[in-house]
């Protein structure tokens, strides 16, 4: 890795890690994950299932919040505070700046998710659930999902305000979770052009549903290794495409 990119990445990580919001969200993620024990007391039958469902959902939710809140501010703040002038005046290209920002955010997400995952693993083991390898696979898939979200928020952060970035990123996140309905929806469309349009959107918008293997992991149903492999490749390709688009926009931006 180029030293310039590494420098930006490390600084981005430090900056995110110093943010109070980051700690607050990690804290609440852990708190809600642990409080899944209380929810599991209320059910009848398999309490471990409810504990895992609630805990994983809490970790998922707070990690997505961290990804969005950290991502939407990153580039915008540099532009707003005019620190971008200082950075870009150094022997560093705009492409490297974006790559560094993304890698720093990816490291931040890894730290946040890692902290929550370790605590949750220990919690499940103490609660009698043992060491569930499926949960480890779920966290890996969640990390891929978070990388896509980070890339989306970084894209919006490069050309619009944090509020609009937040709205756009959340919208894309929600759409991404229900992309599986698009395939069914297009069959209801009578006009072929609409069907082509819907099909186009299906491939264009982020399909985040594939990373969500909570149900399979908790219910212990089989996970196709090929689908995992394709999801990994999808995430890498989609992140690459988003970063390229971000760089394209950022290159054209003029700072005043």
């Amino acid at each position, binding site marked *: 890795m180029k030293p310039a990119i590494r420098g930006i990445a490390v600084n981005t990580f430090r900056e995110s890690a110093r943010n109070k919001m980051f700690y607050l969200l990690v804290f609440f993620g852990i708190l809600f994950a642990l409080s899944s024990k209380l929810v599991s007391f*209320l059910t009848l039958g*398999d309490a471990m299932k409810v504990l895992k469902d609630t805990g994983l959902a809490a970790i998922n939710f707070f990690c997505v919040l961290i990804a969005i809140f950290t991502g939407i501010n990153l580039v915008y703040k540099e532009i707003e505070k005019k620190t971008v002038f200082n950075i870009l005046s150094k022997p560093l290209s705009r492409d490297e700046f974006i790559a560094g920002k993304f890698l720093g955010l990816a490291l931040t997400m890894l730290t946040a998710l890692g902290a929550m995952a370790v605590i949750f693993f220990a919690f499940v083991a103490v609660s009698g659930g043992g060491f569930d390898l499926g949960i480890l696979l779920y966290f890996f898939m969640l990390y891929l999902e978070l990388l896509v979200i980070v890339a989306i928020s970084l894209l919006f952060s490069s050309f619009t305000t944090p509020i609009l970035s937040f709205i756009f990123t959340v919208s894309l996140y*929600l759409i991404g979770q229900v992309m599986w309905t698009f395939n069914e929806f297009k069959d209801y469309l009578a006009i072929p052009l609409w069907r082509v349009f819907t099909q186009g959107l299906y491939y264009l918008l982020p399909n985040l549903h594939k990373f969500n293997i909570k*149900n399979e992991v908790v*219910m212990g149903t089989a996970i196709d290794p090929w689908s995992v492999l394709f999801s990994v490749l999808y995430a890498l390709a989609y992140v690459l495409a988003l970063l390229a688009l971000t760089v394209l926009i950022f290159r054209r931006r003029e700072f005043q």
Partner: protein
Amino acid sequence: MTRRRWLAVAALSGLLLAAGMQQRYDSTVDYFGERSAFVSLPPGKTLRILSFGYRNLVADMLFIWSIQFYSTYNIRNRFDFIERVYDTITDITPEYKEPYIIGSLIMAHEAQDVPMALRLLDKGSRLNPGEWIFDHDAGFYCYKYLKDYTKAEEYYNRAAANPGAPVFIKRMKAHLVYLRDDPEVATRMWLDIYRSAEDTLTRDSAFNHLYQIKAETDLPLLRERIVEYQRRYRRLPAALSDLARAGLVREVPRDFSGNEYIYDPAVGTVTAQRIFRWKKR
């Protein structure tokens, strides 16, 4: 008074006022009185979409809510939408077993609607191939509430066909055959269980059932032959072997343990050494 004190007084007064209003509000609501409730739920598929990737959590929350709701006995119309509620939960996560089991239990036991419970269990069985518990529960409800032993046997047949089905399903099936008055087939089934038993519990259970079925077949025959003997010789037989000597039976049947049945020559009664009242219909 300083500004800080004013603020403290204002905060305290506000809290007191709020507590007073809460008390007034409580006097208008009868929390524990009989009331009615209406449940409005979007269809399962819609909720699955609206859960935005958190469908397990939504199903869990709905299930936990349903347990609390159907345990609130002062809601008089609480069973009005029960089928819809459990259909929705099982539409969101068809693999979640507990809603089928608990839902059907509430339907059969509390709402006393066994056909509804069977519909839910049928759905569970259809959506979870290879799972025996739903057919087992359905069989039990047919046996316990409907007294429909043929239908119960069908369910137990389906349950027993699943690879992971426990041995007691086979026992339950044989018992149902016995209950629908087919002692010959029931004997064959119990003998099969008895011979292939791998544990004492199964073997003892099969033994007891075989003992019961044999006694239920032998005793009426012996009683009938004793009456015939008395009609023919104007006295009761001195021992059961008299029946064989008189040619009324080819040989005196013995119980499944190989022991003779207990005969009282003074009154002419014949009984088995062991009686299993718990197996009576």
